[in-house]
């Protein structure tokens, strides 16, 4: 075999993609690309101090009443999956966004964008699922709209829901209130929803059926606020998973977050599926979990109250807020090393090996 000749001068790599002139899937991934769209396009175009707070929901005062107001769109495929459907997501997702402000959802709007050709029986099943989820969450669908697009221009059903709810007078949940010393609590197993969706979307079999954790968290939040109204911040770690939620809080509060990786509850089904796919459970979506930033003095009582609630039975302290590495999330690994848990850039991609 001839000797390889390596020219070590002038090794180069391709040009950077500094600008994306078109929308790519990563813009909807809840990571850095999503944040850029908001900061570079939407916030300058719309203006407004409330939008600039970039919360899951907006906290408003209208006629002397404190309201939380939120909207979210749902483009999930398939429409029905183990543990739920697009209808459940559309109710629970918006209810949860409101709950993260401490508000109990009162009313929802519902916008349907239907693709020509979809069976009305499918639509009826989605609507029934929405109705059932709304009854469980004790929220009323008060207004709605329907549009139809031509066949081939939609994925069967797209949904949008918006919601309003009252924020209790003594509750003030904002990332800016998070301070060093706060305890970080997650309400249960992470990554379940994302893996459940992947298992049906990609036709992957993981040996056991994994059901989505899709649930309305208003009741759990009420239970926590009953212990103390002085919770500092709540997040529901949906797109981008726990990692994105923690990074958002770290950035908005200017604090660091130190995680104990072994304390993060990850069920074996999720860790195994992620190991097979080369994904990190920290970045996988959840639909029935929250992460809470609680003053240390109240942490034990809040954790006990969460664990006594059906939707918080698996709650665990996963770390604390620190002065070090502001704006960054650092995980202390089981072996004693550290790693940065960064904001995902776009979509998490399965690794080749």
């Amino acid at each position, binding site marked *: *075999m*001839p*000797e*390889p*000749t*390596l*020219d*070590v001068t*002038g*090794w*180069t*790599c*391709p*040009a*950077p*993609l*500094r600008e*994306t002139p*078109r*929308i*790519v*899937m*990563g813009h909807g991934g809840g990571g*850095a690309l999503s944040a850029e769209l908001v900061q570079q396009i939407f916030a300058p175009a719309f203006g407004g101090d409330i939008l600039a707070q970039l919360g899951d929901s907006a906290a408003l005062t209208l006629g002397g009443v404190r309201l939380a107001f939120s909207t979210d769109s749902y483009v999930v495929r398939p429409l029905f999956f183990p543990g739920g459907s697009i209808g459940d997501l559309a109710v629970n997702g918006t209810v949860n966004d409101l709950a993260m402000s401490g508000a109990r959802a009162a009313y929802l709007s519902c916008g349907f964008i239907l693709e020509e050709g979809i069976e009305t029986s499918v639509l009826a099943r989605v609507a029934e699922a929405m109705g059932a989820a709304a009854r469980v969450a004790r929220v009323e669908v008060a207004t709605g709209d329907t549009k139809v697009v031509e066949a081939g221009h939609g994925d069967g059903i797209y949904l949008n829901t918006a919601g309003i709810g009252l924020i209790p007078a003594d509750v003030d949940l904002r990332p800016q209130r998070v301070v060093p010393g706060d305890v970080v609590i997650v309400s249960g197993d992470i990554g379940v929803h994302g893996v459940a969706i992947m298992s049906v979307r*990609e036709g*992957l079999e993981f040996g056991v059926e994994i059901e989505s954790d899709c649930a309305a968290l208003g009741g759990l939040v009420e239970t926590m606020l009953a212990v103390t109204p002085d919770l500092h911040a709540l997040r529901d770690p949906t797109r981008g998973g726990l990692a994105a939620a923690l990074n958002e809080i770290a950035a908005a509060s200017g604090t660091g977050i130190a995680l104990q990786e*072994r304390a993060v509850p990850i069920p*074996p089904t999720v*860790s*195994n599926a992620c*190991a097979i*796919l*080369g994904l*990190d459970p920290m970045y996988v979506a959840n639909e029935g979990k929250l992460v809470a930033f609680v003053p240390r003095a109240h942490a034990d009582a809040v954790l006990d109250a969460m664990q006594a609630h059906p939707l918080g039975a698996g709650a665990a302290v996963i770390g604390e807020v620190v002065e070090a*590495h502001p704006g*960054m999330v*650092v995980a202390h*690994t*089981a*072996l*004693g*090393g*550290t*790693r*940065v848990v*960064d904001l995902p*850039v*776009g979509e998490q*991609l*399965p*690794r*080749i*090996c």
Partner: protein
Amino acid sequence: MKYIDEFQDPELARRLLDDIHATATRPWALMEVCGGQTHTIIRHGIDQLLPDTVELIHGPGCPVCVTPLEVIDKALEIAARPDVIFCSFGDMLRVPGTDRDLFRVRSEGGDVRVVYSPLDALKIARQNPDREVVFFGIGFETTAPPNAMTVYQARKHRIPNFSLLVSHVRVPPAIEAIMTSPSCRVQAFLAAGHVCSVMGMDEYPALAERFRVPIVVTGFEPLDLLEGIRRTVRQLERGEHTVDNAYPRAVRAGGNPAARAMLDDVFEVTDRAWRGIGTIPDSGWRLSARYRDFDAEHRFSVENIATREPAACRSGEVLQGQIKPHQCEAFGTTCTPRTPLGATMVSSEGACAAYYLYRRLGVTPTKLEASPVA
């Protein structure tokens, strides 16, 4: 998969680390060949736990990182064609070509799909007989057998609308290329366990003997890595240079004969360009003459692609372990995971992306200069 936890046991890890600390008396430079191993090392912070005398050099074993720009550009050109469904493993979609990536092609109307197996792409070909379906066959000896099997199936079942864009690479010639480079600092190799599970270990004794380097076949869980490092350091300290299998639960000396037979049938050895490194003789596979009809390059006539590379990125030196990522001028300034100049900053297995996070932590790994091999 319960056994995974057992290979991440902190107590056992501590014992292995203590042994490594007690054994290492001088600076040593070890290269972990595989990107999957790099990923585990970074994800678990293993490099921070080793003694300062033990330096890990991240090797060229990330298939995403070493796929040549020319091949990426060919993929982009093929994927942009309206008659094509282009299928790929997920992490190739963000790798920048000359002026775009596969995500961009998809946003411009290209039908680009992420699959988890090449056989999924074959299924898509069966379901879409009026479209050309191309699978992006990249990777080392690990991913080559299933890709070979897929082409074999396509030929056997006469599925004419399936083809493979091939950029497979082989580890042993890369080890040889690294060791013959004048600026090489590598004193031992952690060989990629999954590659050896396919190919066996026959190719390594000659390399170990010729270059007087220990080669320890190593797995991918934290304890696998620590055990591989422990055995490697012991050999270095004793002045030995043998091939050792620290991954016996997956690797047999003869590898996987069925997989090797499939590779021999479907592929033939060829010179292959490695991004950032250059062409290494006999370091790749292409489809053999019997299967040439299933070669996407041949089918779509994309032989004459003009690539354009800026000069700022030094990932080739990073891939050979000649510089650390933070020693590149572009690192962390014009080159970040958000705006990658090269694949080493794109891939989750890339050394630059991993170091970028360290840099943000204010941690710059400082290691002693490796001593010459005894």
